[in-house]
């Protein structure tokens, strides 16, 4: 164990140092890595490119012997497939026949009828050839490849191809090798054409097989200008007998001498065929690749919280791919030639090597504290994961090594590759990917810095460059709630499946791309597999149409009269001036008709070369090369013989030249032949014919393409009937065109929600509290109003100076007169309220209001540093003590909010702000000022406190800083440290407790206990005791939240007392910022970076939770004992309240976490960076995030498990939590000045309450109501 731990420590230290190294010198390391990748891949250049094309190997004929099976030592350039006997030997007899001299009396059919007829006699000759010598008598029957049945699927070829005998194919097969049938055939071309496949065929056709030369070169057509017919008789031999073949060659040459033929006959070519890849064979391959891509997709989707997600994903894939290439390269370097099919094993190799490490690294680095230096972050992240990475790698190596000992060659080779791949992958991860990651993180830090700078300068932060790739342009509304959507990958996570598919199609323009790729592939296949087709056609076209090519035969029409000038027949002139219309420029030899010169009659109309010239060129030497490379495999496949991974040997052709006299041609004529009209314009029609096929193909392809496009278009329309990006179709239930919708134009049908405005407050709402039935709100003026949440009626108004009326102290009695004034003033203050923002108007207002104002210079010398926000010079103004207190309310809420956000360490002077002083008489102020002054002296740089302080009254009556509502009791905590209990219905003060001296910053009211957190960090527990004189304690059946016991309803007769049961003086070292209570626990968060958990009953501190590196800004706890806390460091911690252990710790925000809500499955957080993040609660993985507009406010609420509501600028937005879609945005008022929703309460009846300047909005969410029913 100790060894293991030591090892572990060493490994992590090494990784740490390595991380520092990588992050410190990124560029040199990347250069070094690229260089090593290239070096390792260099040997790959020597490998042949993969393909299914056949491979050739040429040997001499003379010393040929069948290669042995055993690999020999002196392989030399001999390929490794050249072992053992070939499948077959191919002996072709190449026949060139012409009727010579050509006679004008001959008809076009004569061009090929009698030459083809000669094939039968040649066949006889070959079949009957017998060679006898000392070793015995050999005939073709003994040597040839005996074939049996045709493949069952080829019945229609039965009549044409030989069965049960020698595999000997020639054009004579069309007529069953019977001369009689040939002579009786009225239309040879029709017979030949009959067997051609319909439509486009890319592989060898029957015509090619039988003729042995590509159809274009046979010359069997009516429009053969050369009048030379070429065909082969192909003999397939199973064994090689040099003497028999030699004697046959000599015999044929002797019978049909080719005078000027100098074809080389000393080389035989062995052709090795690769494995055929049919469609069926491709299916498993394609499947594995699909699985591979799914794997890569699902893996890279997890990369998050980096600057460029796709950049890193690319880097990850590059890492894996180049490690594979490196492994192949290294293996090749050390003499291991890959024999496995690379394409087949590649997906498995990728899966074995995997992307896991890369992702783990990324996640680990990303989850290090953001405030660290990049170098340290990388180093820390690396060392955190070092152990698991090493462990995984060791395991994988073990598995692969085990595989190596299976001793199966294929598996061994795979394992070898995998081992080298794993090692090189590790190398690349450590050097390449880590460095890329460090660069990325650094970029993010820079971007982060840029983003934060303007905010710190106190200006409204301009929106920086889009953090996410997609950003919706702001809708036309002046200040709408703009939603920035996330990257497509995240959206995919959350969209419904059907839409996801459609969106995917639409976004990637998949249909178009598939068509494009398909077309390209199709063309590629066509060109690749049909060398006899398009390629040669194009070559022929080029050579024919080149002006230098052939002026007489091809370029110029014959009737132009060029021909007579050059009478044919002279060999030299023909050679020099009339190059024959052959693609090859210079034939080696020409054979002319013997009497060609004499018999040639120059005819003006007839084509001039009356002597068909039989030429033997280099291209005839290996005429089979012009055939499709599938020629031989398809011939053999007809007999169920595969050539895959085997080879055939092609023997040198035997040239046969046949000259026929016109008489012979005429004799062999069929009676019907003469009925054929002579071709009027042969060239045109010939061209027309070839052109027509091409055009046909083109038209067919075009039509198919158009059809495909139409089909896909229809499909597309059916699948996604919405108009993307157009305003044409508006969803029926949406009436407000300016509602934001997502960037696909998809707007989910949500019924219209209209907010109910609760008006009455004269100043910005400061506190909100609700128990479901009642809603209490307190404004900056100190006025508390109680509303009915069902109807929105205002039930009670507790004015700020109501204290005096309460009768608890007679001292206040003389203040009664103010009530009427205040009431009157309330109404008038609504008008000038907006003007209040303007400093000038405020100043102008002062002289009017200044009445007998005693100065408080000591208090107001320390002004808040709000000058960037408020253009006012309050410092010079003596504080006004207004007789009309609400008059002074001006719209300050949003500004103050921002002010305290931006002045994170605010000066203590921000506390007593005259701008928010509320009504108080001089005398009252004098009396009440003392405690608050004392407080002010003690306050030191505390942001929450100072925030409250800016809104607190500077003099006179202390303001309400915290408020809670249970039953019909309102607990209000004041800045003076007083805790008051009010009757919500009657508006009477029931109890007051003045035990504490420090202002109450937060309150929790649970059952009959009140917990008050004070500014000095102490925590007071109060007990509310009800002495019921009438013994009545009725419980109102209020909709309690979850399992909270409904609060008792206190009747007005009860005597309520509030006792301080315990005061924890030093609960925190610094002010308590958050206080939450639920499930019998009280949780406090403080500026001192800690969270404390207290038991409610005995106020005993259970845990002090440490883990944040900043002040706590948000806490969430609910009945299920889930505790989440967010801090100024942007971290969110989930705690187990029972054990006090930290469940997870994630960094999600740059800046403070402002608000936290949990559902049963996820945690939702919002931060100062205007980002709303949704986390999986159990795993702590960020599911997705929503980028909001700057200054949107940070209020969050969860209405149901799947409905999230957020406050924005003058609006609230509803989100579907499952998919992250914006459901609807509800605008709270017509005035769209930048009033943000700062507080948002979700009531139990699926209504939400939010403050909106000095108004409250009550928004019912009908869809949720339906759901709840």
């Amino acid at each position, binding site marked *: 164990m100790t060894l293991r731990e030591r090892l572990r420590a060493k490994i992590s230290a090494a990784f740490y140092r390595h991380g520092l190294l990588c992050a410190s010198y990124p560029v040199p390391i990347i250069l070094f890595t690229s260089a090593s990748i290239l070096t390792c891949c260099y040997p790959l250049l020597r490998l042949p490119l993969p393909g299914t094309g056949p491979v050739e190997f040429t040997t001499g004929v003379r010393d040929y012997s069948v290669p042995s099976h055993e690999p020999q030592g002196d392989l030399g350039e001999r390929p490794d497939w050249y072992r053992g006997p070939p499948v077959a030997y191919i002996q072709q007899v190449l026949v060139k026949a012409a009727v010579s001299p050509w006679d004008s009396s001959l008809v076009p059919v004569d061009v090929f009828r009698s030459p083809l007829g000669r094939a039968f006699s040649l066949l006889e000759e070959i079949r009957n050839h017998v060679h006898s010598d000392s070793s015995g008598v050999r005939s073709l029957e003994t040597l040839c490849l005996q074939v049996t049945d045709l493949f069952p699927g080829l019945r229609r070829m039965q009549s044409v191809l030989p069965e049960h005998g020698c595999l000997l194919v020639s054009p004579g097969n069309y007529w069953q090798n019977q001369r009689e049938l040939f002579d009786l055939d009225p239309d040879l071309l029709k017979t030949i054409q009959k067997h051609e496949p319909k439509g486009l065929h890319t592989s060898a056709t029957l015509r090619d097989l039988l003729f042995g030369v590509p159809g274009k070169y046979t010359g069997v057509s009516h429009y053969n200008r050369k009048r030379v017919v070429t065909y082969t008789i192909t003999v397939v031999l199973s064994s090689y007998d040099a003497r028999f073949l030699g004697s046959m060659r000599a015999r044929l040459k002797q019978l049909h001498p080719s005078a000027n033929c100098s074809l080389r006959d000393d080389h035989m070519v062995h052709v090795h065929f690769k494995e055929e890849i049919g469609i*069926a064979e491709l299916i498993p391959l394609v*499947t594995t690749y699909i*699985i591979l891509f799914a794997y890569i997709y699902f*893996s890279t989707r997890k990369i998050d919280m980096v600057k460029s997600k796709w950049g890193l994903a690319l880097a990850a894939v590059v890492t894996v791919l180049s490690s594979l290439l490196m492994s192949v390269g290294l293996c090749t370097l050390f003499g291991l030639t890959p024999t496995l099919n690379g394409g087949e094993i590649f997906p498995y190799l990728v899966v074995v090597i995997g992307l896991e490490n890369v992702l783990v690294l990324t996640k680990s680095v990303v989850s290090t504290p953001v405030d660290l230096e990049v170098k340290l972050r990388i180093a820390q992240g690396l060392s955190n994961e070092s152990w698991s990475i090493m462990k995984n790698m060791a395991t994988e190596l073990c*598995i692969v090594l085990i595989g190596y000992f299976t001793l199966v060659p294929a*598996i061994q080779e795979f394992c070898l590759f995998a081992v080298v791949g794993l090692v090189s992958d590790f190398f690349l991860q450590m050097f390449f990917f880590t460095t890329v990651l460090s660069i990325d993180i650094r970029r993010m830090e820079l971007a982060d810095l840029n983003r934060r700078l303007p905010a710190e300068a106190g200006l409204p932060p301009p929106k920086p460059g889009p953090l996410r790739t997609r950003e919706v342009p702001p809708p036309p509304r002046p200040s709408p709630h703009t939603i920035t959507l996330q990257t497509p990958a995240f959206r995919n996570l959350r969209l419904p499946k059907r839409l996801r598919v459609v969106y995917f199609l639409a976004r990637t323009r998949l249909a178009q791309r598939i068509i494009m790729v398909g077309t390209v592939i199709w063309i590629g296949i066509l060109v690749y597999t049909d060398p006899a087709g398009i390629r040669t056609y194009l070559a022929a076209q080029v050579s024919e149409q080149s002006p230098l090519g052939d002026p007489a035969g091809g370029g110029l029409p014959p009737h132009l009269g060029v021909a007579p000038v050059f009478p044919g027949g002279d060999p030299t002139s023909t050679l020099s001036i009339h190059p024959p219309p052959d693609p090859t420029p210079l034939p080696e030899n020409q054979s002319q008709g013997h009497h060609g010169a004499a018999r040639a009659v120059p005819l003006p109309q007839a084509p001039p070369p009356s002597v068909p010239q039989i030429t033997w060129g280099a291209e005839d030497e290996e005429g089979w090369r012009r055939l499709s490379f599938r020629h031989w495999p398809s011939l053999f496949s007809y007999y169920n013989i595969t050539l895959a991974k085997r080879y055939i040997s092609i023997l040198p052709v035997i040239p046969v030249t046949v000259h026929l006299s016109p008489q012979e041609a005429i004799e062999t004529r069929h009676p019907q032949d003469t009925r054929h009209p002579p071709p009027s314009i042969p060239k045109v029609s010939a061209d027309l014919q070839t052109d027509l096929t091409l055009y046909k193909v083109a038209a067919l392809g075009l039509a198919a393409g158009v059809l495909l496009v139409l089909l896909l278009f229809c499909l597309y329309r059916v699948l996604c009937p919405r108009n993307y990006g157009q305003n044409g179709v508006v969803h029926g239930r949406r009436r407000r065109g300016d509602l934001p919708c997502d960037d696909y134009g998809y707007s989910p049908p949500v019924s219209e929600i209209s907010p109910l405005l609760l008006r009455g407050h004269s100043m910005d709402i400061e506190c909100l509290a609700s128990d479901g039935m009642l809603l209490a709100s307190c404004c900056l003026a100190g006025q508390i109003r109680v509303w009915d949440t069902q109807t929105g009626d205002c039930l009670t108004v507790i004015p700020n100076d109501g204290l005096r009326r309460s009768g608890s102290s007679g001292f206040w009695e003389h203040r009664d007169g103010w009530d009427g004034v205040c009431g009157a003033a309330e109404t008038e203050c609504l008008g000038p309220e907006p003007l209040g923002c303007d400093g000038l108007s405020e100043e102008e207002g002062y002289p009017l209001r200044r009445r007998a104002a005693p100065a408080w210079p000591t208090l107001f010398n320390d002004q808040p540093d709000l000058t960037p926000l408020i253009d006012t010079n309050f410092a010079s103004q003596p504080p006004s003590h207004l007789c009309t207190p609400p008059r002074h309310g001006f719209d300050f809420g949003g500004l103050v909010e921002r002010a305290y956000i931006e002045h994170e360490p605010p000066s203590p002077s921000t506390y007593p702000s005259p701008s928010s002083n509320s009504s108080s008489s001089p005398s009252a102020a004098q009396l009440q000022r003392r405690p608050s002054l004392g407080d002010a002296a003690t306050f030191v740089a505390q942001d929450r406190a100072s925030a409250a302080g800016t809104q607190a009254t500077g003099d006179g009556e202390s303001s309400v800083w915290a408020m809670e509502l249970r039953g019909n009791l309102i607990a209000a905590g004041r800045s003076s440290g007083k805790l008051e209990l009010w009757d919500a219905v009657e508006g009477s003060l029931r109890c007051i407790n003045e035990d504490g001296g420090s202002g109450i910053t937060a309150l929790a009211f649970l059952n009959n206990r009140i917990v008050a957190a004070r500014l000095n960090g102490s925590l007071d527990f109060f007990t509310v005791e009800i002495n019921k004189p009438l013994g009545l304690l009725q419980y109102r059946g209020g909709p309690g939240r979850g399992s909270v016991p409904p609060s008792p309803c206190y009747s007005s007769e009860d005597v309520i007392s509030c006792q301080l049961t315990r005061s924890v003086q030093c609960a925190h070292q610094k002010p308590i910022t958050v206080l939450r209570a639920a499930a019998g626990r009280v949780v406090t968060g403080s500026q001192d970076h800690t969270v404390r958990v207290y038991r409610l009953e005995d106020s005993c501190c259970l845990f002090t939770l440490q883990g944040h590196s900043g002040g706590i800004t948000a806490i969430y706890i609910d009945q299920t004992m889930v505790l989440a806390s967010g801090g100024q460091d942007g971290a969110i911690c989930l705690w187990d309240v029972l054990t006090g252990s930290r469940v997870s710790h994630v960094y999600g925000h740059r800046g403070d976490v402002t608000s936290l809500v949990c559902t049963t499955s996820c945690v939702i957080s919002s931060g100062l960076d205007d980002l709303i993040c949704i986390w999986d609660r159990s795993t702590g993985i960020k599911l997705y995030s929503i980028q909001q507009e700057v200054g949107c406010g940070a209020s969050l609420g969860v209405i149901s498990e799947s409905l999230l509501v957020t406050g924005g600028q003058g609006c609230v937005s509803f989100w579907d939590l499952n998919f992250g879609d914006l459901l609807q945005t509800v605008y709270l008022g017509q005035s769209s000045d930048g009033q943000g929703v700062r507080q948002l309460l979700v009531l139990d009846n699926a209504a939400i309450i939010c403050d909106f300047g000095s108004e409250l909005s009550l928004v019912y969410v009908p869809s949720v109501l339906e759901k709840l029913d």
Partner: protein
Amino acid sequence: MSLTLTAMSNSTVTRGQQQRSGSGQMPQPSQSPYISVITNRTTNMVIRGAMLFFVGVFLALVLNLLQVQRNVTLFPPDVISSIFSSAWWVPPCCGTASAVIGLLYPCIDSRLGEPHKFKREWSSVMRCVAVFVGINHASAKVDFANNVQLSLTLAALSIGLWWTFDRSRSGFSLGVSIALLATLATQLLVYNGVFQYTSPDFLYIRSWLPCIFFAGVITMGNIGRQLALYEYKFVQEKTHQD
């Protein structure tokens, strides 16, 4: 080809038994009185079953093809039709089998009360499927010296698959038992002459067949669990709402 055929048939037979037990279990978890939850659960289960079914059919077709290729290297032009005509009942059987297995795994997990937490991600599931296809590929395309070597290699690979992607005892035992049942069923089928193997070396079948079965069960269980993860969340959220 024949081996996949047998695999299919075997699994179908076992399926039948499992289906009965599975259907017995199905109503039990939905004890909550809320109709909506039941319907949602059943719909969810049907959806999951359908997805698993199609995955099974697809894998059956592809792997069958792999086996076909093992014997015939060069295909006549009409090979595509022969893929489907070989035995029409094979893919549906495979699909049903995989659906049942895929539903059975999460069900057993919840019965035992030990939810499977190991590598619950889609990328891991994809890796698992790839390895499964790779095992089939190896069995079809790699030339082994003898049958024992082939079977041992495949067994090691299958165990490795389980160790890499599952590591749960319930998964292992379920995989082994289903593999044994399926093997038995194949033996019976071959004995009764429904089909046969070219070169049987383990009574009537090939000796590596149980390994393939085992790997397939693990793979389908993995997929099923991953799918059930969604339903789990869904139901959780539903019940909370109620």
